[in-house]
């Protein structure tokens, strides 16, 4: 960044630009970001990228090993599974389902959680206290338990497992938002808004929400990694996505039967989940330290 500056002009990047400048100082964070972008691209373009329909069964090629093994073919890059389906295409589609649904459910949980958290944070008295304490302690109920109950009531399926994870994620957002809103409400700039006659909604929308974006971004990356792991865990336990929907956890558990003869069928979906979560965590970590450094400098 050796730029020649004739004038000692000060460069004040905008907050978001500043975060980006701090963020890209870490090479790990950049690599993680690139991988995350790759998964985004896969999520959007999976049907175009996949060479085969993920559910078409090619009975002539069953349990083909990946292309780099001796008897694999380049036609099936990652080989085929026990039903003769192309693993590469299935993995792309599975990534799409897992990642896409996680993003959607985190977004829903975010919106609901922020709304509830703001209500809890801006209100006082019995209503808010009940909401707070109940949500705080219900936060302790394990995700899988919620999922089991929802599946018991509504049956299995991707949408139901998403619902379960949304319910499990909401309390975290509520908790964070409430604490943040409560802290901000004590500050003088909110009092000034009040004195100027701003309504509660305006205070929230114009004064509190803009300051909350960073918190929410960090919290969302955390929630996203949890969501991906949970949704694939539910898929793995056969409580989530059901065939013909291809999902990483589900395809992992389907491969268990042939684990001896085709270990790559276990390695691949698991590695995809791992990579996805890892990249999200690295980005989250980079984001957090970028935010921290921005405050220092």
């Amino acid at each position, binding site marked *: 960044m050796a730029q020649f500056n004739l004038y*000692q002009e*000060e460069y004040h990047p905008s907050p978001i630009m500043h975060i980006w400048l701090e963020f890209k100082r870490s090479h790990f964070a950049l690599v993680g970001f690139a991988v995350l972008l790759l998964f985004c691209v896969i999520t959007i373009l999976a049907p175009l990228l996949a060479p085969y329909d993920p559910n078409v069964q090619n009975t002539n090629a069953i349990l083909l090993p990946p292309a780099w093994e001796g008897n694999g073919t380049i036609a099936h890059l990652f080989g085929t599974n026990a039903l003769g389906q192309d693993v590469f295409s299935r993995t792309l589609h599975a990534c799409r389902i897992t990642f896409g649904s996680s993003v959607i459910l985190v977004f829903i949980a975010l919106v609901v959680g922020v709304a509830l958290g703001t209500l809890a944070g801006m209100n006082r008295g019995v209503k808010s206290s009940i909401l707070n304490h109940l949500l705080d302690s219900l936060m302790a109920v394990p995700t899988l338990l919620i999922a089991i109950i929802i599946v018991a009531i509504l049956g299995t399926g991707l949408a139901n497992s998403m619902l379960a994870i949304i319910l499990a994620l909401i309390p975290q957002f509520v908790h964070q938002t409430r604490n943040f809103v409560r802290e901000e409400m004590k500050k003088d700039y909110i009092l000034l808004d009040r004195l100027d006659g701003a309504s509660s909604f305006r205070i929230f929308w114009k004064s509190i929400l803009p300051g909350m974006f960073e918190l929410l971004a960090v919290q969302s990356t955390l929630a996203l990694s949890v969501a991906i792991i949970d949704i694939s865990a539910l898929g793995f336990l056969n409580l989530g996505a059901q065939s013909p929907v291809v999902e990483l956890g589900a395809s992992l558990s389907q491969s268990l039967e042939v684990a001896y003869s085709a270990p790559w069928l276990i390695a691949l979906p698991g590695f995809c989940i791992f990579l996805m979560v890892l990249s999200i965590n690295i980005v989250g970590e980079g984001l957090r330290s970028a935010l921290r*450094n921005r405050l*220092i*400098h």
Partner: protein
Amino acid sequence: MPLLDIKNLTVEIDTGNEFVKALDKVSITVEAGEIRALVGESGSGKSLIVRAIIGAVPDHWIITADRMTWKGQNLLTMSNEQRRVIMRREIAVVFQDPTSSLDPSATLREQLEESIPSEFLDKGMFWQRNKQRREIAIGLMHKVGIKDHDSCMQRYPHEIASDIAQKFMIAMALVSEPEILIADDPTRSMESTTKNQILRLLSALNESKKLAILFVSHDLLAISSMADSMTVLYCGQTVESGKVKHLHRRPLHPYTKALLDSAPSFQINLPPKSHLVSLEGTIPTLQHLPIGCRLGPRCPSARKECVKVPEERFIQQHAYSCHFPLHLPTGNDKSSDDTEDFNLGSSEGSRQ
């Protein structure tokens, strides 16, 4: 030999993009038993000097100095262990903000008793030692003027008022019977009555125990009432240092003069409703320090020579860094001139 002797201390700090000389060739000495004041506006690097002395500067900041010694031992090159031993017994520090300098999860008693060096206890059994610790602690609390030691010592730092906390910090600093007390703006944001108590406490300690004090502050009134000598800092450069009465009578540096003029209590013949004097402009930010004399852009008597850093010059004990000092003809016949000045100064200074 002075207790603390710092010559041309330069500290370069990391602003994220580049290293900036936050302190540029600062010199300061503290003799045994004197109260030396370190004056400067906020951001002039006062606290940084303190941190450099006690070694609490981040490792990657660059500290260089021609001389930075404690009783002849080099503070820059000594090992952490050596420095720790010195800090333990000989140097004590009182920080700006007393409540954040106390561990929030321990009672005051625990913290005070922890600070008592074990050499102070007789070789008794452990339960006797506890009693001894308690007695020493109570004695210290009384010494700094906290009367109800019982109720105070059981409390946690967030439960006591900040002036009590500051007295307590002084008690903790005194526990090891140090030779110098470095007080980093101990009266910041205090009411004037409590401030006076603290100042009186410090002066009394100085007189009764011959405790040297490095008093860091921007409060000229406090300094003039207690300090023997002072060093004025501007933007990380020492501009002037000497006896307080000399500086008051005849400030040589334009900044010192501006500083003194800005405090109305020092101007005896200030007509009513007249404008208070102040320098034009503002303190430059760390990223945009001017070259040469850092006061340059704001200095009323700046000339083009001022883009060079002025060397430190001495007139007896009075040091100043200015190309064009006030009250002094820049001509040749310096020495006769300033002896006269200072004779005058000292005779009048006795009025204070």
